[in-house]
């Protein structure tokens, strides 16, 4: 079937008209619930710097799955969940024991526990398969827990996922201020008598719970990605924690939906097997992170680059304005300065000055016209303000920083672009409204009020 047909089939399934509505709806619901819960809880996890810890817990769940299976004698969801819950908590305890009773640091201790538990899990899975017989036969599909598979989600799985989502969202909603305060400022939280230790442990239990119910969809290796990537994306997009949690939950849910869709369209075989599990979800989540990394208004790379460029252009234009002002001071007509004069004032080739002057277009300050830089009233006003700031700053440097008059120009040349009205007022007051600068030049008067 073609891509388009498969897409049509996918959405037909979602509304109950396709050939396999049940399994598609379960997969989508499961992946969305899992993404949403991981995303919401993950916000606190990355702020608490527990990402690696989450990854460790996820890997540590594998032997729990195997032992749960051996004890129950079947792939009963409650047995496997209970097994992985216990394994996760044991691993957490082991990590803490290693760091508390030796000089081994956090990251090494996490690495030790992660690989040990994972190794035990792999070994047990191999042993079950090797052993054959009744148990071995029932074990087929158990290794889906390694990479996850949303296509095998059952109603029972969904019930567990939905309950976990409810519990996590309820705890976050009820104890938002306590949890965030415990993470942000532990000493202060203790000092006001909030039970911080209790909330830290609660966070740990919720984390284990979320990981365990998400294992079947995302697999032990990839589940941590949904606890880290959507929250990290949201962290780049907002500066408010409630928004970060909400946004991260939505992003996680979207990644879950998109991942299931991609798997359905690209990987599904005739029997409905061969779905890529968590892989597509994780890659999609990463695409979201990439987008935020590049385009986030405040914290994105692109935004920072554009701000830098804009600042560069503004500086360039303002430097032309101050050159023009200096010519105006010597009797030139400020409203229309010949490019040749401007070039000699700036010590450049006229062709270079002409290129720069062209970049005045669109600034509202002036433009290049018949080989003159024509300045609008607002351009002339800006030139005056810049020059005033520049010369006040020179006096300030000379008086307050005791710099020699021939040392103050360079500093003022940089600062003039950044002096706001308030700073200039402060300078005026501090310097007692001087009329000439260290080089004996007149300081353009301030605005008449």
């Amino acid at each position, binding site marked *: 079937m073609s891509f388009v047909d498969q897409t049509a089939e996918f959405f037909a399934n979602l509304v109950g008209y396709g050939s396999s509505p049940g399994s598609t709806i379960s997969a989508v619901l499961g992946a969305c619930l899992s993404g949403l819960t991981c995303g919401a809880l993950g916000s606190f996890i990355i702020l608490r710097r527990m990402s690696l810890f989450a990854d460790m817990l996820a890997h540590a769940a594998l032997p729990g799955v195997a032992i749960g299976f051996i004890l129950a004698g079947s792939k009963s969801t409650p047995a496997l969940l209970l097994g992985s819950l216990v394994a996760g908590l044991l691993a957490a305890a082991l990590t803490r024991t290693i760091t508390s009773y030796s000089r081994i640091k956090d990251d090494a201790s996490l690495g030790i526990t992660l690989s040990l538990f994972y190794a035990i899990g792999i070994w047990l899975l191999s042993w079950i398969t090797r052993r054959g017989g009744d148990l071995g036969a029932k074990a087929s599909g158990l290794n889906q827990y390694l990479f996850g598979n949303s296509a095998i989600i059952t109603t029972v799985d969904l019930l567990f996922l939905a309950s976990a989502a409810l519990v996590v969202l309820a705890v976050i909603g009820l104890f938002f201020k306590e949890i965030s*305060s415990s993470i942000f400022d532990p000493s*202060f939280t203790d000092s006001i008598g909030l039970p911080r230790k209790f909330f830290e442990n609660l966070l740990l239990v919720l984390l284990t719970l979320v990981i365990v119910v998400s294992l079947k969809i995302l697999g032990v290796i990839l589940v941590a990605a949904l606890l880290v990537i959507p929250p990290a994306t949201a962290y780049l997009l907002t500066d408010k924690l409630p928004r970060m949690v909400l946004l991260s939950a939505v992003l996680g849910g979207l990644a879950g939906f998109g991942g299931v869709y991609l798997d359905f369209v690209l990987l599904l075989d005739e029997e409905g097997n061969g779905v890529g599990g968590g892989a597509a979800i994780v890659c999609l989540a990463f695409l979201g992170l990439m987008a935020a990394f590049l385009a986030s208004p405040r914290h994105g790379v692109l935004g920072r680059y554009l701000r830098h460029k804009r600042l560069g252009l503004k500086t360039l234009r303002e430097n032309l304005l101050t050159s023009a002002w200096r010519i105006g001071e010597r009797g030139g007509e400020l409203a229309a300065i010949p490019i040749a004069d401007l070039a000699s004032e700036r010590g450049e080739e006229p062709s270079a000055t002409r290129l720069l002057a062209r970049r005045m277009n669109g600034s509202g300050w002036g433009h290049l016209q018949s080989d003159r830089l024509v300045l609008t009233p607002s351009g002339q006003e800006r030139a005056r303000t810049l020059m005033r700031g520049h010369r006040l700053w020179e006096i300030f440097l000379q008086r307050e920083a005791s710099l020699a008059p021939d040392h103050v120009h360079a500093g003022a040349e940089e600062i003039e672009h950044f002096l706001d009205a308030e700073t200039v007022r402060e300078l005026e007051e501090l310097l007692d409204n001087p009329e000439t600068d260290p080089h004996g030049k007149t300081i353009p008067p301030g605005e008449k009020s």
Partner: protein
Amino acid sequence: MTAAPIEIHDLTVSYDQKPVLWNIDIEIPEGALVGIIGPNGAGKSTLLKSVMGLLDPSSGWVKIYGDPIERQRATVGYIPQREEVDWDFPITVRDLVLMGRYGHLGLLRRPAAADREIVNNALEEVGMTSFADRQIANLSGGQQQRIFLARALAQESRVYLMDEPFAGVDATTEKAIVRLLKQMRAEKRTLLVVHHDLQTASEYFDHLLLLNRRLVAFGPTEEVFTEELLRKTYGGHLTVLSQAGEAIRQSRDGKK
């Protein structure tokens, strides 16, 4: 007789079996503005944390108005060192100050209009109103310290413990903090402030607590800010001593 705001009795605190504070005995009088001074590693922060009940003492006890700290949490406000928190945390200045109300709210309750009003006033007091809705990153050291102070004000406590509020702040903030400290003292609050600058210690505080693992001296500034006691506190730290000598000379000159 009513109980003292802070009574420390034979307090010994250890980290990993190693005592950091030895047999401290102090009674802080009501309304005192106390500066805690001593060399690095003297246990100044440890003393505050122990009073706050954040560390378990190996022996001795602390009482706040005659009660253990657990029953007087709302009475005591604590300002940790600025470096203790992550300033990239996604909260606004206003949210941080609002944390000062959490102790009064207790579990589950949300801040009411009255709490928000208190927060606004606290921001006003420290001159940070125009920053209220900014994220806490990108603030200067002085501004960070001021919002920590605003959070403490929002706690409306009778006793305050402040860990190095003057560390790394600009001159304007330093003046603002001093003004607030004096104002709080005028309101009969009791203040315990860890301070690192001997030059200003005698000027800012009416009582000094000289600490170097053991209590060297505690009393009114003019009685304990002497070369001999400072020498005992700082031991062989020569540069600090000459600094102290200079500070004493200046404070004597100032009083003539």
